[in-house]
């Protein structure tokens, strides 16, 4: 313990002392370049983990949720614009993105210990996972939906009657958010009804 404090003290003294060998220019420019390399590297790796290829590189994602997505309009549609995993599951804004990425370290833990390593385990855990993700989207007013589906640019005259009905009332007033009605549009839903209650209510 004593030696550790000594060690820290020695380092602290070194850091505080002005540089005796390197010029100010070298340290400034070197620091700048090192900054670019480290920050750039960090961001590159961050973005590499923010791709569909990365997400579906493990069988848990590829065999379960990715297969769900492939059936939906967010994967396959007339215009070819599609949503990939991080479009919905990782915030686009940097601050929120980093926060979500830190939470995602729990998913690495899950992968290592195989919390959903089989289809059966996944189905058993699906309600918990879906509930958590729906709660996240409800709490942030479906922010990830709105990255593409901007309410301000919706043309009600191009929507069906019942869509206009819902969008011009509850959604506009903020009483409801996208996922309240449009849940289960990208993945199959688990049974979300309270314990012991049949699905047909």
């Amino acid at each position, binding site marked *: 313990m004593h030696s550790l404090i000594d060690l820290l003290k020695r380092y602290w003294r070194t850091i505080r002392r002005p540089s005796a060998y390197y010029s100010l220019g070298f340290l400034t420019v070197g620091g700048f370049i090192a900054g670019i390399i480290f920050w750039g590297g960090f961001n590159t790796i961050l973005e590499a983990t923010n791709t569909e290829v990365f997400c579906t590189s493990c069988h848990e994602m590829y065999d379960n949720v990715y297969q769900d997505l492939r*059936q*939906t*309009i967010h994967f396959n549609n007339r215009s070819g614009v599609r949503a990939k995993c991080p479009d919905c599951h990782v915030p686009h804004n940097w601050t929120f993105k980093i926060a979500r990425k830190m939470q995602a370290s729990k998913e690495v833990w899950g992968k290592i210990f195989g919390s959903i390593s089989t289809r059966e385990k996944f189905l058993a855990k699906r309600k918990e996972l879906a509930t958590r993700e729906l709660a996240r989207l409800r709490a942030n007013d479906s922010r990830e939906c709105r990255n593409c589906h901007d309410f301000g640019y919706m043309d009600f005259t191009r929507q*069906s*009657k*019942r869509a206009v*009905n819902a969008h011009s009332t509850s959604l506009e007033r903020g009483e409801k958010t996208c996922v309240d*009605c449009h849940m*289960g*549009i990208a993945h*199959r*839903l*688990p*049974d*979300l009804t309270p314990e012991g209650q*049949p*699905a*047909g*209510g």
Partner: protein
Amino acid sequence: MDRRILAPLLLAALLSACSKRDEPPPAPPAPAPQAAPAPAPSGPEATPGNVMLSEGKESGALAGAAGTTGGPTNFGDPSTDSEALALADRPSGLVDALRGTPSLMQEPRPPELANTENKDVRRTRSYAMQPPTIPHKTDNYQVDKYANKCLTCHSRSRTEESQAPPVSITHYTDRSGNFLAQISPRRYFCEQCHVVQLEVKPLVANTFQDVDTLLKQQQAKPREQ
């Protein structure tokens, strides 16, 4: 004789018998079944509809019996028309709604896919007990043991919010007539009875008349006498 040799021979004999039988009676000079005919460019006078109409007139009663929607199903491949029609005129009057009328050796072109009608306007039921048809898209609606997308609007408890017609009370009874708190499992899979509609030409002719029409006809008759 070795069975492996016999089988193809039998098949060939069967096919040739079929193609002979498929050859049309005198009327149009139809060629023997061609192997994969290329869709020939058709002028305005040779559109499938026109051909069908003129052929229908010639063969009279039989073509009429095939249906009121203008004769046999035709998938619009002009090069197969003459033979297709000849086949439909066979006395059996059978029309294969899935394949159309081309012979076994021909590959009919399926009709183009149509979009589901999405007008949100309730349609008249053809008879009192008809399950109402769905007036909106139901693409990718999940109806399984985990969730029922239809019931997120049409269930009893969601009706006020959604303004969708609630599920009929008959769906809450089991087969013994006991009323249940939830949709009866035997009524859970909505799209077994309730279906979306597409604006396409019906594949099979239908001469159904609803009871009101029949009553009107009956009422009209005595007055004429």
